[in-house]
């Protein structure tokens, strides 16, 4: 499984010059502000636009090679595209929308696979409806199913949540997470929302002004001290890949374990053994030289300082490692100087339980 993309495109003042590889199934977020070139990239992969220069290779099949004059028409590319505005065919039922690409696919998935996708996306009861009668979230799910059933080799998602209100986002997120966890194909997920990316992406490509600024796993990129320079704004914070270990209903706490430690958070509903993600915002992490006694915070995590960076206006961002897992703390420059923090120091990261939770997408904007 591999996707190789190299694109050069110029449109008025905007210059796109990117190069990246995707080597595994799952969600790779194309993350960046509006105008960073995200949509141009996926449009070039889909064949909706032809860039001035570049090459797109999916699983050793050359879809585009401008120099060699290769430009496979969109209908032969086997690239699934989930548009922001769904673009369901209004004259067809949900069933016929779902089967539109499936019927035309050269390598058709089996009927049982069609059923599996319908169940995975919770579309069983919508099949005879027309798109006009669906809610925004339902439309997105149908669009997702329609793209998947055309047996694509890569799936492109153009801000599928951006047009939805908070409640609808919450409705479709579990489906996207399931899609990611069951993923058998690479997905490029365009987003300008750090919360969405934190919750959904396996890997992140950070775009800035038409260039790749950072690329890596979600855990690495979100704890990268350079990230605020690229995103320009909070919320900034590390994401932890955790497993639900224990519920302490009487204390109102749940114990989550991660590679390198454990963390207590407010009581969760998820069953024991569930894998999920929690975000620890940089502003919510304190650093202590010595393990504090008698402190209200539930989490005092031994950590090693992995890096420091001064951030405007007078802050200092500190990258901490608890085993292999990274955290970031944003403290004042004064505190950093008072504690004389430097790389390699052993310290304690103090995290209040009440500040930790899943990346909260539904409450955004």
């Amino acid at each position, binding site marked *: 499984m591999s996707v190789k993309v190299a694109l050069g495109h110029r449109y008025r003042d905007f210059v796109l010059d990117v190069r990246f590889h995707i080597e595994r199934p799952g969600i790779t977020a194309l993350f960046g502000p509006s105008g960073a070139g995200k949509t141009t990239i996926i449009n070039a992969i889909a064949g909706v636009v032809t860039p001035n220069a570049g090459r797109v290779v999916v699983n050793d099949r050359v879809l585009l090679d401008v120099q060699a004059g290769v430009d496979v028409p969109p209908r032969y*590319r086997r690239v699934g595209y989930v548009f922001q505005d769904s*673009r369901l*065919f209004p004259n067809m039922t949900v069933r016929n929308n779902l089967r539109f690409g499936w019927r035309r696919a050269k390598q058709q998935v089996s009927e049982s696979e069609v059923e599996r996708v319908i169940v995975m996306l919770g579309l069983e009861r919508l099949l005879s409806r027309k798109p006009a009668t669906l809610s925004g979230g339902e439309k997105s799910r149908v669009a997702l199913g329609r793209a998947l059933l055309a047996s694509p080799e890569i799936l492109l998602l153009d801000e599928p949540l951006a047009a939805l209100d908070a409640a609808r986002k919450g409705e479709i997120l579990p489906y996207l997470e399931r899609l990611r966890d069951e993923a058998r194909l690479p997905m490029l997920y365009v987003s300008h929302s750090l919360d969405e990316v934190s919750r959904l992406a396996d890997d992140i490509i950070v775009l800035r002004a038409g260039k790749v600024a950072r690329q890596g796993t979600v855990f690495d990129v979100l704890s990268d001290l350079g990230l605020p320079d690229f995103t320009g704004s909070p919320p900034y914070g590390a994401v932890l890949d955790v497993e639900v270990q224990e519920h302490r209903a009487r204390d109102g706490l749940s114990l989550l374990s991660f590679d390198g430690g454990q963390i207590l958070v407010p009581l969760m509903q998820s069953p024991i053994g569930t894998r999920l993600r929690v975000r620890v915002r940089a502003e919510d992490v304190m650093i202590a030289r010595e393990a504090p006694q008698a402190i209200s915070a539930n989490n005092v995590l031994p950590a090693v300082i992995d890096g420091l960076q001064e951030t405007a206006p007078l802050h200092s961002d500190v990258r901490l490692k608890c085993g292999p897992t990274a955290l970031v703390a944003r403290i004042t420059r004064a505190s950093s100087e008072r504690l004389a923090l430097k790389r390699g120091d052993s310290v304690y990261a103090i995290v209040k339980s009440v500040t930790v939770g899943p990346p909260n997408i539904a409450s955004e904007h």
Partner: protein
Amino acid sequence: MPALTAPEWEALLLSLKVSAVAVSCALPFALLAAALLANRGFFGKPLVDGILHMPLVLPPVVIGYLLLLVLGTRAPVGGWLLQHLGIRFVFSWTGAALASGLITFPFQVRAIRSAIEATGGGLSIAAEGLGAGPLDRFINLTVPLALPGIVAGAITAFAASLGEFGAIITFVSNIPGETRTLPLAIYSALQTPGGEAEAARLSALSLALALLGLVLAEFADRRARTIVPR
């Protein structure tokens, strides 16, 4: 209202026949022309656009005359058709249908074109990515989505065709039972002493038909707007 006389009935039925044939024969060509014009530009598009719209601005008499020049029995094309295929348009109701179809062609093209344009290119791009070729998209997406526009265009063209006078009388003359449609019958009645009552009856009939056609076309147009979300 007194009952229609036999020649009046004849004129009415002939009008309906001529218009029905005119509109249905022109429809496939209108669909193609509309699809061509609705898509992105090509070299010479303004010229094609202009030619297709000519019948709207040209005096119908001129159209009739041009048809005579091309399709008259001694004209190059008309002579050939008569000699080899036995087809004669002049002095025949088929000629009336041809003239009507030509004159009302722009009504159909315009209605279908705006219906296609209203569906936007987005759906077509989505369909292409799902493996649909151009003909596939035209049949399964463009035509169904433009259907209300197609119906509206056909109804408008039909109603306009019922009123065609100048091109018909110039091209195929005014022969009772063959080319004397409603407007020609009204004209003939007015030329006959004492024919005012007949002219009034036929005019009232024309008015009612035109009104009905426009109401139906408006209804179809509304439907177009509700089916195709913007």
